[in-house]
């Protein structure tokens, strides 16, 4: 828009934005570019200009959006490692290719990083000069009226019998009342405009809002980076009861996902026990049998001697804060207490065994490894029904998640349970070197132990016995440190505030010129909105109306 730049005037108060065609005289002076004479400095400057241009920002933004897509369609190891490894097992041809491209960890790949680093550089390179210009512009005068006001797209004129001075004085008061900044009269000395016009400007805060918005983006990223570099996220399953508990050291976590600059020394020292865990169940309606609320009653202490024991009711959406660490309740389930005695009558295994829920009804799966059993190791693998019933088709099922009629149903294995000797998951039984124990009454069928709490069953062949003592619950807790999260929050809030200013404050310039002409005084009114969203025609209309109305009264 040529009109625009001409009106912006030589003062270039709020400059048009890099990338717009506004000519930038500096750096391209008369001695400027002759072909072939681009020295290194000029090249760098040219590259910098390109990088910080609005068009580049736009392209980088779109690239960022595009680059984020694969991470939402391909499972990410940082988000769900289990699912990712399953996917990798199922797609053996694609996996190596994807892995090379970093598609399982999109958000920390170099190419993703490159886009947002470029964007940030572009952003800083764009903002800093604008800050300087804005600072200067704050104290500058609104620009003088352009010579041909009526050439502006939104302008209007009328003739009146009034003296020009009277019209201008009134325009000044009117505009001041509408919180315009008025150009101080320059006197005829400046030549270009005599004092036949009033210039008003408002909406300075728009540019401020825009600057705050873009600067805050940097703040958010710093906060976010702090969290992902310095923080950690870990998960642990803790059995309810005073015999179990948790001490905040690395070795106690089931899984642990530290940032790359995380150091163990920053972990907060604390311990806690889960005294009780309460679930309220939905007893009617279509979601009957599902859990509605959970409450985990904790006692935690930060001192080594636990003289500062404090109670806290941990609930979903209500994490516990201990120092810089937060503890979240994210899951729960059942741990049947099972005791295995071996062939010699010794207790080879005893304790709560965490079973993992398979669905909303808390039908759960778990294993027992009695590795100490003699003469042979004993393994159990099976399922847990919190409220056991036979359904209409005669299949075993659980009615709901509450443990009203608990039952475990286990298959038995004997033999070496860890043939490779390496670390094993506690939730899976390696039966490759073990033999399934068959039903002595029907040797074609595997032996299945269906037990209620309190029952003991002897195993055939003098292997020993299994007792189902009771059922306790466990909680899955997520424990994390996210430093920088307050910074990020402040950043986004500032971002929003800046954005509101940037989008809804309309920077506007208004001019009124009054000149003595043949048929009286010719009054010209024009307005310019530089945001491209305002309705300047309406501004002109109402200003003309106001000027004329005041005269009549």
């Amino acid at each position, binding site marked *: 828009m040529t009109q625009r730049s001409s009106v912006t005037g030589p003062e270039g108060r709020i400059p048009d934005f890099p990338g717009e065609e506004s000519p930038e005289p500096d750096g391209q002076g008369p001695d400027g570019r002759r072909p072939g004479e681009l020295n290194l400095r000029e090249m760098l400057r040219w590259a910098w200009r390109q990088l910080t241009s609005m068009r580049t920002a736009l392209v980088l933004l779109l690239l960022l*959006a595009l680059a984020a897509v694969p991470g*939402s369609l391909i499972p990410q190891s940082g988000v769900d490692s289990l699912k990712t490894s399953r996917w990798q097992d199922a797609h053996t041809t694609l996996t190596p290719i994807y892995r090379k491209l970093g598609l399982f960890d999109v958000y920390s790949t170099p190419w993703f990083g490159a886009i947002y680093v470029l964007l940030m550089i572009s952003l800083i390179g764009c903002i800093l000069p604008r800050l300087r210009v804005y600072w200067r512009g704050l104290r500058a005068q609104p620009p003088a009226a352009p010579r041909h006001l009526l050439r502006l797209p939104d302008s209007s004129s009328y003739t009146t019998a009034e003296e020009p001075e009277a019209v201008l004085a009134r325009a000044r008061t009117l505009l001041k009342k509408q919180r315009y900044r008025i150009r101080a009269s320059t006197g005829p000395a400046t030549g270009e405009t005599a004092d036949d016009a009033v210039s008003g400007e408002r909406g300075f805060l728009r540019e401020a809002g825009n600057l705050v918005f873009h600067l805050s983006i940097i703040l958010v990223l710093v906060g976010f980076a702090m969290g992902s570099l310095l923080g950690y996220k870990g998960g642990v399953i803790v059995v309810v009861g005073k015999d179990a508990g948790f001490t905040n050291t690395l070795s106690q976590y089931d899984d642990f996902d530290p940032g790359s600059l995380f150091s163990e020394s920053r972990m907060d020292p604390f311990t806690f026990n889960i005294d009780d865990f309460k679930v309220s169940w939905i007893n009617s309606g279509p979601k009957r049998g*599902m859990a509605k609320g959970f409450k985990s009653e904790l006692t935690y202490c930060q001192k080594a001697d636990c003289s500062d024991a404090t109670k806290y009711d941990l609930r979903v959406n209500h994490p516990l804060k201990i120092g810089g660490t937060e503890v979240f309740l994210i*899951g729960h389930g059942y741990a049947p207490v099972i005791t295995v005695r071996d062939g010699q009558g010794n207790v080879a295994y005893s304790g709560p065994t965490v079973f993992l829920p398979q669905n909303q009804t808390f039908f759960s799966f778990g294993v027992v490894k009695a590795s100490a059993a003699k003469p042979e190791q004993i393994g159990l693998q099976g399922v847990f029904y919190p409220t056991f019933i036979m359904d209409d088709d005669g299949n075993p099922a659980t009615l709901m998640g509450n443990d009203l009629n608990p039952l475990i149903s286990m298959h038995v294995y004997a033999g070496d349970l860890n043939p490779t000797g390496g670390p094993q998951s*506690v*939730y899976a039984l390696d039966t490759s070197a073990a033999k399934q124990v068959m039903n002595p009454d029907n040797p074609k069928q595997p032996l299945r132990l269906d037990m209620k709490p309190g029952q003991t069953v002897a195993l055939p062949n003098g292997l020993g016995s299994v007792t189902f003592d009771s059922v306790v619950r466990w909680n899955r807790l997520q424990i994390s440190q996210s430093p920088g*999260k307050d910074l990020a929050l402040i950043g986004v809030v500032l971002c*929003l505030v800046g954005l509101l200013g940037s989008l809804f404050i309309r920077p506007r310039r208004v001019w009124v010129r009054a000149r003595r002409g043949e048929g009286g005084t010719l009054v010209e009114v024009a307005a310019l909105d530089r945001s491209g969203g305002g309705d300047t025609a309406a501004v002109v209309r109402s200003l003309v109306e106001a000027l004329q109305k005041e005269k009549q009264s």
Partner: protein
Amino acid sequence: MTDTSWGMLSNQAVGAAGVLYFLALIAHLVEWSALSARKRVPAEALVGAGAPAEQPAVPVDEDREHRVALFGRLGFLLTLIALAAHFVALLGRGMAADPHRVPWGNMYEFTLSGTFVVAAAYVVLYRRFDLHWMAPLVVTFVLVCLMIAVLWLYEPVAQLTEALNSYWLVIHVISAILATGAFTLGGITSAVYLVKARVGPRETGWMSRVPSLEVLDRVAYRIHAFGFPVWTFAVLITGPIWAHQAWSSYWNWDPKEVWAFITWVVYAGYLHARATAGWRGRNAAILALVGMATLWFNFIGINYFSTTSQHSYAAPAPVPSTEHPALAIQG
């Protein structure tokens, strides 16, 4: 009233709203067809001649003009009544749950609320932006979405599970729905912009009532400029706050979050495009449509394509969770 009768009322109100929107659509179609019959000057004479649509060149057929105006008003009136029924439907959903709650526990309710906001925004802005030209598009959109909701997304009234029971969620979802409504209206405007830019000014038919490109561009910008901060608030402030409380980390790169972010970035691109020479107008309008596509893909697509999403309405309970059991190592 009992919970069940509130639920039934809601279902009936959805039906009534559907019928009323349908009638409104018919009224607008009659209006529309009357417009296209308004042929006085050969259309070709004007197409491409750069004649602004406002030029009062056509000798007017009073009767027809009258009919156009009448059906236009009738359509708007029907839309208003439909909107009231639509509101009753939402209210009924909320009252039917025990305890009462805001009506967006699943996709059915989200669609009900989202379409309500689109229709309400249209009604509210009708005068301010002179939106009569948008009537058939908005009504069709709302009607189609309601039909999809009733046919495929319907779920009986249910309680919210605990993770969904948070006032941050209420604020989060209200703002997300509001922004979705605004972006949808803005997208419709941008689509019309593109169509109009292609066919050029028309003297007859529905296109003749569509305002000039400049006005369309400005209206689209204003609506998007409203939607963008609201979306920012929804997905970058309240969303993370709630996620932090419920899942312990405020940004998870969960597919739903990723797409909300993509939508945000695309609309930031739109706002930049409007300020960049060579990108204003047509390209900006295309970007607005891309933004709307990502928005709706996030709403519909992600729930079906992605099973990792913790936002999936299909499995609302965050507990039990068996996220990383395989990592637990026995020493």
